[in-house]
């Protein structure tokens, strides 16, 4: 039992207690959700305090047998990357509670209970070290999100929820197959143990084997990221989800995919990752430009932000597959940045929706006159999102592109086009929503920020500046882990050279 276990257990316990609260008093559910999620956040800050920043390996280890046959362990631990992702999840949950305070009026108790359950699943994904346990959390986190979209969403919520669920499931099944295959080869689900076998040469995967396993894992993660062309579930899910759902989905759930690629794909299948890297980079760059261009013409604010996520996460994937320290650091930083700034964007859109009850850009105009502070906060968020220096995204994008430039300068040229386009779609949207003449519809529906809303937005704004100005608070632990991961991807590199001839030999044998 250690602090990490507490951070994982708290949301689950809060969820169970939330179920016991009387349905007749929604206020009690809200208060409980707020109090318990803030407590979880505090506990995760404790994690930060005890974390040894000088150590690149896994910390807060806990490993207890769970199921004896097959040999499944309840093994959790955190490293410099998952630590930040856990904190991101625990930070955003209380903020989501705050913004859902009044906008959720039906089945309040269940809503907040699901939110807490979601937090449990998300935290679990980032700290599970047993492949089976990881898979359990991975699937588990789908369930509350499915209900959040399906019950509290907008008109086409069922379609979106089912699409979201099936899309992700399709990938997960491939991953499950790969996990079971690995278990059959090694007799263990323990990720560190499998890694040790690989590093010590005890486990040798034939190139074809490695490639297939890599693809099985990668497709599951790429759907979650989402990488072009597997992204079409995202806009639907975002548009239909309630604000809190969109925030958690964009800010944390998409990171599950990125984290998975970084944490599992690269160390487990280094040769396959390097072989596929050029193709994946091409997809990532297409995603960056394509997402931005499609975002530009969206008439719906949430869809616009959703496509912008496709573009932003293209940077993350690009950074990872440059196999440079800067690229990896930038990718992780960009994961956190996207969590903060896109979360804040969705919160901003949610605040507008709470007032005007529309997501269509054309229903707005002149908001800056009616609600200046809301517009200011949205402006800062937007600027963060388009990568203005001093704000967080700039640091991430710079590192990713710098890493890309080291790996292959031509890629940088194409990827940088995305930076131009991001300004286009965001500024255009901002102009149409916030600037212009104030119409009567907007005027009567647009009070400025309330205290509760300030409380939800200010932490994110503070983080944007902090991460943009002083990245040294965040980057060193990340860099240590990435250096280790990079080292692991070097291990089988000579092996990669064999890949092509062996493949041909196999084909010949098959004939």
């Amino acid at each position, binding site marked *: 039992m250690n602090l990490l276990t507490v951070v994982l257990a708290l949301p689950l316990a809060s969820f169970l207690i939330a179920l016991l609260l009387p349905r007749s008093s929604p206020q009690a559910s809200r208060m409980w959700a707020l109090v318990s999620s803030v407590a979880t956040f505090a506990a995760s800050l404790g994690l930060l305090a005890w974390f040894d920043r000088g150590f690149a390996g896994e910390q807060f280890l806990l490993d207890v047998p769970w199921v004896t046959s097959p040999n499944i362990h309840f093994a959790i631990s955190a490293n410099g990357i998952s630590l930040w992702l856990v904190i991101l999840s625990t930070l955003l949950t209380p903020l989501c509670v705050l913004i859902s305070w009044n906008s959720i009026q039906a089945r309040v108790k269940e809503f907040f209970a699901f939110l807490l359950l979601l937090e449990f699943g998300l935290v679990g994904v980032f700290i599970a070290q047993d492949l089976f346990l990881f898979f359990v959390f991975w699937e588990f986190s789908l369930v509350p999100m499915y209900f959040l979209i399906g019950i509290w969403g907008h008109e086409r919520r069922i379609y979106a929820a089912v699409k979201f669920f*099936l899309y992700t499931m399709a990938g997960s099944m491939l991953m499950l197959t790969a996990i079971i295959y690995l278990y059959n080869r090694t007799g263990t689900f323990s990720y560190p143990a499998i890694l040790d076998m690989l590093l010590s040469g005890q486990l040798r995967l034939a190139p074809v084997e490695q490639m297939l396993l890599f693809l099985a894992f990668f497709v599951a993660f790429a759907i979650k990221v989402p990488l072009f062309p597997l992204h079409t579930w995202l806009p639907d899910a975002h548009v239909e989800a309630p604000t809190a759902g969109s925030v958690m989905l964009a800010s944390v759930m998409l990171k599950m995919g990125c984290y998975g690629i970084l944490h599992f794909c690269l160390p487990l299948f280094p040769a396959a990752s390097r072989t596929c890297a050029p193709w994946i980079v091409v997809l990532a760059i297409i995603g960056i430009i394509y997402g931005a261009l499609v975002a530009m013409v969206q008439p719906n604010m949430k869809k616009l932000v959703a496509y912008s996520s496709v573009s932003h996460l293209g940077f993350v994937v690009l950074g990872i597959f440059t196999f440079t320290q800067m690229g990896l650091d930038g990718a992780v930083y960009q994961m956190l940045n996207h969590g903060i700034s896109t979360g804040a964007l969705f919160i901003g859109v949610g605040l507008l929706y709470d007032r005007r009850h529309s997501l269509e850009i054309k229903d707005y105009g002149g908001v800056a006159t009616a609600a200046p502070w809301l517009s200011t906060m949205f402006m800062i968020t937007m600027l963060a999102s388009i990568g203005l220096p001093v704000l967080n995204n700039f640091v991430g994008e710079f590192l990713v592109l710098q890493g890309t*430039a080291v790996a292959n300068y031509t890629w940088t040229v194409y990827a940088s086009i995305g930076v131009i386009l991001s300004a286009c779609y965001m500024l255009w949207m901002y102009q149409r929503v916030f600037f212009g003449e104030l119409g009567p519809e907007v005027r009567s529906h647009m009070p400025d920020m309330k205290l509760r809303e300030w409380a939800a937005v200010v932490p994110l704004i503070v983080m944007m500046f902090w991460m943009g100005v002083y990245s040294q608070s965040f980057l060193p632990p990340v860099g240590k882990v990435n250096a280790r991961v990079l080292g692991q991807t070097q291990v089988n590199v000579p092996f990669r050279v064999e890949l092509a001839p062996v493949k041909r030999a196999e084909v010949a044998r098959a004939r």
Partner: protein
Amino acid sequence: MQLWLIPILPLAGFFINGVFGRRFSKSLVSTVAVGSVVLAFAWALRVILALGDLNSAYTEHYFTWIQSGFVNIGCDMAVDRLTVVMLMVVTGIGSLIHIYAIGYMAHEHGPNFGGFYRFFAYLNLFMFFMLTLVLAANFLLLFVGWEGVGLCSYLLIGFYFDKKFATNAGNKAFIVNRIGDFGFSLAIFLIMVNFKSLDFATVFQQAPGASEATLTTIGLLLLVGACGKSAQLPLYVWLPDAMAGPTPVSALIHAATMVTAGVYMCARSWPIYVHAPEAMHAIALIGIATAFFAATIGLAQNDIKKVFAYSTVSQLGYMFVGVGCGAFSAGIYHLMTHAFFKALLFLGSGSVIHALSGEQDLRNMGGLRTKIPWTFWTMLCAALAISGFPFTSGFFSKDAILIAAHGYAPWMFWLGVVTAGMTAFYVFRAMFLAFFGTYRGREHPHESPPVMYLPLVVLAALSLGGGFIKIPVFLDKFFPTGEVPEDSTLMAISVAFGLGGIALAYLMYVLKPSMADSFADSVKGLYTLVYNKYFVDEIYDAAVVRPVVGGSRAVLWKTVDAGFIDGMVNGVGTLSRGVGDVLRRMQSGNIRSYASWVLLGCVTVIGAVLFFLGGVR
């Protein structure tokens, strides 16, 4: 020496006014805003005086900003002789324009997000970023300032955000600048790849060792960035539209300081450029082309601010010519004098607009000479300076550039003097249309308050006498690229062209006012072309904006995304539902039918065993 105080002071002003400004009185807002900038000026002065002759750069390191792999970027600031010039220009002119703005914006009430304090907050924020840009000791910190001033420019151009044309102009400025920044950031990445550092000191020390191809690529990419920020061909289109902002903004950002950042950056990167002669050549070519091209458009504009906007583009072209010809100090010299006289021209035109309660069209002015004498006389000083009238500031700096151009390529000199003639013509055309003849407008003109015309007087003094601040001498240690020789023949030629331009304007707009119209009629096609700015905006719109937006909507979104990819996804869904629909019929929910299936299955299995395997035994 606490260099950080210089930019932080305006930032503090921004925070105070931005957060509490709504509750402050106007005088408190302006005290905070002006005070912070004047303090920055004073502190900069103190720093410069304390640092002595500054033969080498003085650097301060504050904290590590980004550290990853071999990337190690600090928040470092440095002062050298080039920085000194820029610091003085930015804080000095900035202070004057802040003071002027108190009067100019006095009638600003705005909607409930009141105009007055918002204006000063933005202006202070601009000062913060501009000073960061100037003080930065590495490329990335310079880029911070670079993007930051772009942001402030966007905010201030779109200051009247309920007007669509203003916010359109703001977006255009930001996006066109982003295209430039695209080049600049690519240059930064390339520098980092090649030199493993972004610190000016390290990079410039290693620059001679790099291959010429690399340096040329870096130089050209930096030039793309500079073209965006300094409004050069082909990215100049945002600057004329940027006049939608309040006039002090046009003076401070779009004439004196921000738009010169590109020139500053190119001059700062001189150790790269001197080893990349082709990149230098590109700078000179773009400069001279822009100078000439923008001047022709300036000839036919009727909006007083548009005239000066095109003039700014043209003058920036001169600075690029100077930098491109290797006369870096002449470029910076002209940057400084231009800051004096162009700020004055804009502030003066602001004073005219203020006097006429918002009228900007030259055709509705005239005869204002006696009605607003302070404005007239001060503006006249600036007009003389920009025309290169002997011994005014513009005379020295422009001639330094033209002589350097003659040494580089004589045809550039001749194009330059023709441009100088046109410059003198259109500036005096504007002067004569506004101040001479009879008054053609309806508003009752009134002179501006002293808080507005006193800065004008200071700037007028600088425009006239600024040429005696010998920047080339001050900078020749910094740019050891050889001095520009004096050449009285060439000087005489350029002065002659300038005076000729003034005389022609006097002839056409004062002596025989009908002559201008008849001349325009006689070259109608050309006049229409120039009047409409060569239809460049329309061409960009048709060639770039529409295809991208339309293509994204029709092809990428509706066809590829919703049609193809999502069609496939939904197709898989429909297919499996279809299959399921067939199979569903077996699952009737009727237990007895299930039992029948079971029975049937048993019989089949037993039958098969008996038939094929010949019994169980």
